[in-house]
């Protein structure tokens, strides 16, 4: 599903961030990416949806070869990648439902389908009753669930999460990880960057450690 081979990223000769990492995530697999702050987790995630370009190396996501992708095709790639951020990134003047619906509007889904799929996914993440509230009326946990719903609603090839529990308390963090697990069971491939290694270990999934620009896989 997701293949990364000998990936390098540097912001100048004296500032290498990632130095030749390789890994594969299979279809339906959920993987954690851990590492200290500044290890390059966010940089790696950004390269996977082409917010940043690698210095060298290869990335392949399903049918997409990210190395040879024209700028005009990046939107097409992003329709197949769901991304969740620490700061939620919800549009403030759209309700929770409208934020989720945006991902479906972008792919040209019909109005009736948008309503149905939006309600289904909000029910799945447990905030259907809050669908008409604006982001500033939602708690952190609810806002992150809305963001997750938006990332999942189009059934992307992979879901990338960059420190999704960074702004949440422990209770909400556990609930969110449980939700990721629930979504993973439905068949989605997921890569979660987190510094909460202990919590990640509880899920018994693969953990990739990124430190000093290199990757090491934790044995289970």
């Amino acid at each position, binding site marked *: 599903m997701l293949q990364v081979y000998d990936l390098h990223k540097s912001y100048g000769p004296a500032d290498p961030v990632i130095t030749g990492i390789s890994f594969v995530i299979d279809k339906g697999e959920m993987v954690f990416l851990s590492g200290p702050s500044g290890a390059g987790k966010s940089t790696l995630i950004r390269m996977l949806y082409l917010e940043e370009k690698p210095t060298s190396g290869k990335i392949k996501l399903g049918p997409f070869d990210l190395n040879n992708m024209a700028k005009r095709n990046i939107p097409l790639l*992003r*329709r197949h990648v769901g*991304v969740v951020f620490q700061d939620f990134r919800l549009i403030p*003047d759209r309700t929770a439902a409208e934020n989720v619906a*945006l*991902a479906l509007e*972008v792919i040209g889904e019909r109005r009736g389908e948008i309503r149905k799929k939006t309600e289904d996914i909000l029910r799945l993440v447990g905030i259907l009753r809050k669908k008409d509230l604006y982001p500033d009326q939602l708690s952190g946990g609810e806002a992150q669930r809305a963001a997750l719903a938006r990332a999942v609603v*189009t059934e992307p090839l992979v879901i990338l999460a960059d420190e999704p529990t960074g702004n949440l308390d422990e209770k909400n963090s556990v609930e969110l990880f449980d939700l990721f697990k629930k979504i993973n069971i439905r068949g989605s491939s997921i890569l979660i960057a987190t510094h909460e290694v202990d919590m990640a270990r509880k899920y018994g999934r693969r953990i990739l450690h990124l430190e000093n620009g290199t990757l090491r896989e934790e044995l289970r």
Partner: protein
Amino acid sequence: MRSPARVTIEIFRAVRHEVLSTFGTLLTVVLALTLPGALWIVAENLSRMEQELKSELTMDVFLKEDLSRTKIEELNVFFGGVKGITDVKYLSRQDALFKMREIFGLEMVSGLDDNPLPPSFVLGVSESLYDQLRADSVIARIKQLPEVEDVVFAGDMLNRLQQVLGTIKILGLLIGLLVAFSAIFIVANTVRVAISDRRKAVEIMQLVGATRSFILTPFVSLGGIIGLMGAGVASLLLRLLTGYVSGHIIETSFPRFFDVVAFILTGLLLGMIGALIATKKHLKI
């Protein structure tokens, strides 16, 4: 592609924090388009007057006294041979009085004891005589005839009208260009503010895979709507103004329906150009 309803909602989202300034932009565009619109209407009406004047323009040759039929025939042939004369018609004293009665009514001529009107030739002229120098040369030649008392020709009036029309057209074009640039700039500035207000939303749209056209459409539509509404309201103002001038000052015609549509579409185009410039400069996607 977005549906029109979604685009409309997105436009409202883009301007809802800037309602007053957007309204101000609309008002400025209305005023900016009204000025060249008014000059356009003046030019149209002067053109119409010019055409009317051209179609009615004659050279009137007044004679000293009644002439014999043979002499009339001779002059008929002479005038017919002058370059620039297209039609020759003799008007006897009686014909002239009849014509005056037609124009001014019976009361005007009933008080006259004797017919004071001289006989005359009414000469139709070709476009070559709209040139003052040529007309003067023909008039001088005709005036040399011993039977001729005077020659009256309104060619100079046509010339003056054409000069005024030319000036108004150039002025209209210059003001039109100036206004077009101003309208583009004003709309571009409003769209720039809307873009700045929606920057976060735009970033998120890009994140979920929105295409360039999906993101740009509401902003370009906003510019187009401001231009369209500006030109529409300006047309309405000009229609009212023309009606007032017609009713109180001078008969003035309003441009034809399709010309008004073209004017409004020009407003739409200017607005869209302004919006495209703003998106090109301030929306790096």
